[in-house]
């Protein structure tokens, strides 16, 4: 979710829908995670008019959120590198 908001603010439905398309998780349980990340200061939210229909709640990543994302990405990189290395050695 942090990665999805890196370049542009997104509204809840967009985030939830994108996540549940890629990962096997029901859409309803993504909102609590979004709430948690917001409460921990990784996102700020604001209401904005959309081209169609009522205003939507947008999520914007904070500097703190960007820092956290970088940390997670580095961890992920190290982890995948290690796993790839192990798989190659095995073959």
């Amino acid at each position, binding site marked *: 979710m942090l990665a999805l908001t890196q370049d542009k603010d997104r509204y809840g439905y967009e985030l939830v829908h994108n996540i549940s398309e890629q990962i096997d998780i029901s859409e309803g349980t993504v*909102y609590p995670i979004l*709430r948690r990340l917001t409460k921990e200061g990784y996102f700020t939210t604001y209401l904005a008019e959309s081209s169609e229909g009522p205003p939507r709640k947008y999520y914007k990543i904070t500097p703190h959120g960007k820092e956290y994302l970088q940390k997670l990405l580095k961890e992920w990189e190290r982890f995948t590198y290690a796993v790839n290395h192990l798989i190659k050695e095995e073959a």
Partner: protein
Amino acid sequence: MNKTEYLKELAQLLKKIPENERKDILYDYQEHFEVGTDEGKSEEDIIKDLGSPKVIARELLAHYHIEYARSNTSFTTVLRAIFATMAIGFFNLVFLLAPFLAIIGFMIALYITSIALIVSAVMILLADPLNSFLGAEYIHLGFEGAQKWSVKILGSVILSGLGVLLGIGTIYLSKGLYKITLKYLHFNLKMIKPS
């Protein structure tokens, strides 16, 4: 089930959460339905993709109780947070139950020891008057020289001192454990997701 029924059920399940926060939570799901409908999805499909309100509510309640216990730390609030997290799913339960039982058993043992020390300190002083009052034989407390008052008082002071110190230590230990428990619950929620 339609949109109204779905939101109503979710609201009902979240009634323990204060109104402000609950409204905020429900707003997200309301908006989800609105956007979904705009994108041409039927209410039925939206509900199918959202999943059961019960699962969502369990997750939200666990978050709520952990947060609440963080700002109002006490035995009951921490206990509630533990139970709310256990309710989420099988793996949450498995990873919580054993450490929870072990720690609570250990803490109870410490509290009982502390109380026993203080009670025995009182008993040393009361043993003689109590015996004569009951007309019973002398109760052996395991202190051979305990018949002398000076020895009795010294023993009593040492025992009660130990009891009080252990009690205070245990209270501090409990407070530290509350914090660690809440951290672990938070970690448990982050790691283990319902599918």
